[in-house]
């Protein structure tokens, strides 16, 4: 698919003597993981459509350090953080948007003490604001009659108390938003956090993503919406494990909105 995405880098902005409104922090998953790249593109389409002057760091971006920190490797985390902060501060970045709740949490909460002070927003809050400001309009027709359940990513929900922005977006789609039994602050983890994504689970009698996917599927939803690339991967795997492929789709909130806007 050739596309007409406009993705300027911060270096290009500076070269033109301009400053981006906001920096889009893509994250490792959003840059390299095949499934997550689709989320990245969906979000960029929305940014392009709304005419947001954003920039990415491109090859100057590096892992935020979240998995290293949560694996206990504080040393590696701080190395990553300080390198990133040097780059971000070098470009005079003030505001950052990201589609990854892990990057979001780390940049927002853990970078300030190390010298990185930015206004950091999650893409669901950012999209909500674009719609509220009239820069983006969506018609929900496409999802009319569909049942969508929303999975709260731990690092957006409990970690940072953001529960409503993604739900408000989904409600704009004219679809029925149905809640799982464990939702909002009681939401069950998908199993990826704390660097679990990168290792085999410890011994137990079930995988966490299967437990969560069963709960999502039990709601009778056609679509499981998530706001995190890791949750997306885990629940997509979960849907395969419970053999519901083709019946239940796992989508990022940004993809839902982009798809509703026919992008």
């Amino acid at each position, binding site marked *: 698919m050739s596309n007409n995405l406009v993705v300027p*880098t911060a270096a290009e902005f500076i070269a033109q003597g301009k400053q981006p409104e906001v920096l889009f922090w*893509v994250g*490792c998953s*959003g*840059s*390299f993981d095949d499934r997550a*790249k689709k989320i*990245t*593109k969906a979000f*960029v389409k929305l940014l392009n459509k709304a005419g947001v002057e954003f920039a*990415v*760091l491109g*090859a100057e*971006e*590096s*892992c935020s350090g979240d*998995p*290293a*920190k*949560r*694996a*206990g*490797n*504080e*040393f*590696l985390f*701080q*190395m*990553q953080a*300080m390198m990133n902060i040097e780059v971000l501060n070098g470009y005079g970045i003030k505001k950052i948007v990201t589609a990854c709740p892990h990057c979001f*949490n780390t940049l927002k*909460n*853990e970078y300030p003490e190390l010298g990185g002070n930015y206004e950091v927003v999650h893409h669901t809050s950012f999209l909500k604001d674009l719609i509220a400001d009239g820069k983006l309009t969506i018609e929900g027709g496409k999802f009319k009659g569909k049942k969508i359940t929303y999975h709260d990513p*731990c*690092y957006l929900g*409990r*970690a*940072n108390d953001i529960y409503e922005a993604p739900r408000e977006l989904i409600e704009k789609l004219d679809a029925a938003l149905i809640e799982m039994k464990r939702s909002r*602050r*009681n939401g*069950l*983890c998908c*199993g990826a*956090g*704390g*660097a*679990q*994504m*990168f*290792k*085999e*689970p*410890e*011994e*137990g*009698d*079930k*995988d*966490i993503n299967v*437990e969560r996917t069963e709960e999502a599927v039990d709601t009778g939803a056609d679509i499981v919406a998530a706001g995190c690339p890791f949750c997306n991967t885990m629940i997509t795997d979960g849907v395969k494990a419970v053999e519901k492929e083709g019946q239940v789709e796992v989508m990022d909130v940004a993809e839902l909105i982009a798809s509703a806007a026919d992008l």
Partner: protein
Amino acid sequence: MEYIPNIIFTVLLIAGVGFFASNIKKMIRNIKLGREVDRSDRKGERFAQMARIALGQSKMVRRPVAGFLHIVVYVGFVIINIEVLEIIIDGITGQHRIFAPFLGGVYDFLIATFEILAFLVLASVIIFWIRRNVMNIKRFIMGELKGWPKNDANYILYFEVVLMSLFLTMNAADFTIQQGVLSGQFTSEAALHYINAGSFPISGFIAPLFDGLSFETLHIIERACWWLHIVGILIFLNYLYWSKHLHIMLAFPNVYFAKLTPKGQLTNMEAVTKEVKMMMDPDADPFAAPDASEADEVPAALGANDIFDLDQVQLLNAYTCTECGRCTSECPANITGKKLSPRKIMMETRDRLEDVGAVINKEGEWKDDGKTLLNDYITPEELWACTTCNACVEACPIGIDPLSIIMEMRRYLVLENSAAPAELNGTMGNIENNGAPWPYNQMDRLNWSKE
């Protein structure tokens, strides 16, 4: 001779309170074995949090049944303690119902309130017992509650039943004596000591059992209950230190000192910041001698191997934990059968702290006993099962943060022992070499935009 009861009472009271105070001093000493942590900020918010969560029980009622029952016990306990104040003054002075003449009708109202509360507490405690022992509620029957923790939970409930029953029986006997005096049946000087005071909506129902008993018998019953009740309270007070029931005091400071920053925010280790800054500073001289003041200090371990490496709030958390298991019942790792249980993390931390304290009690100072919190109490397998999801922190009704302890111990495993699981070593190697947890080239980070 007539002062003997007052003297016995006073001696018991001083001994009971004194012994309790000495145990609390030991507890504080143990907590101070931890690292200092500054929680002197944001006092207003801390008080508000304490008022809401501890005093106001706001997180307790998220489980409506347990929460409601607990509020009854909690409110009952606090208010009934006003009566204990009178009992103590009566005991020291040899008076009977010393507040009655001052309070008049209000006194009747107070006694009636205490009685109704005592009855509600009794009922709630019995339901608590049934929930624990009959209903097979998972969080009450899991492995880590076998043995002492289970017995402890039940002992507390029995204590409450006995205390409340004694209180009501005592009032019933008192009430019967008062009736006897009013009707002219009891005329001895000792009987006249029982002034006509109080109102007995609950013990009024017990009183008929005492019909026809002589004053002497009633007097013995009333006194026996009075003594057993107050001695029971003193025993209970001293039992607290060994029990999860320590929470009735510690819940308040524990909530006060709980973390106020977003739950997702982990601490940045200062010692590491210093080193990383040095490494990244092109002007720094890596071979420079550290300045003298720093050279004397034994460098603290990175992360936590034992309770000495945890901070004082984490150790306070361990003493405060009620072992309710709300955390564990929300933990994704535990739900899916992994060994990790955040409640067990707190219980093991307390056990280790107590074991260290016992050595200090015996030897006068800490002597290495060849054990550590890591490995001997908490295994790496438990630690590596955590997804850092914060469900345990969110679930805890009294502001305990099991995740922070798990993280400190992971840090020790990785930074001091290089003992991360092999796959994670690979991940970290990738991050270090190419800035992503997977082996992709950093230069390719923008390829998606052209695909």
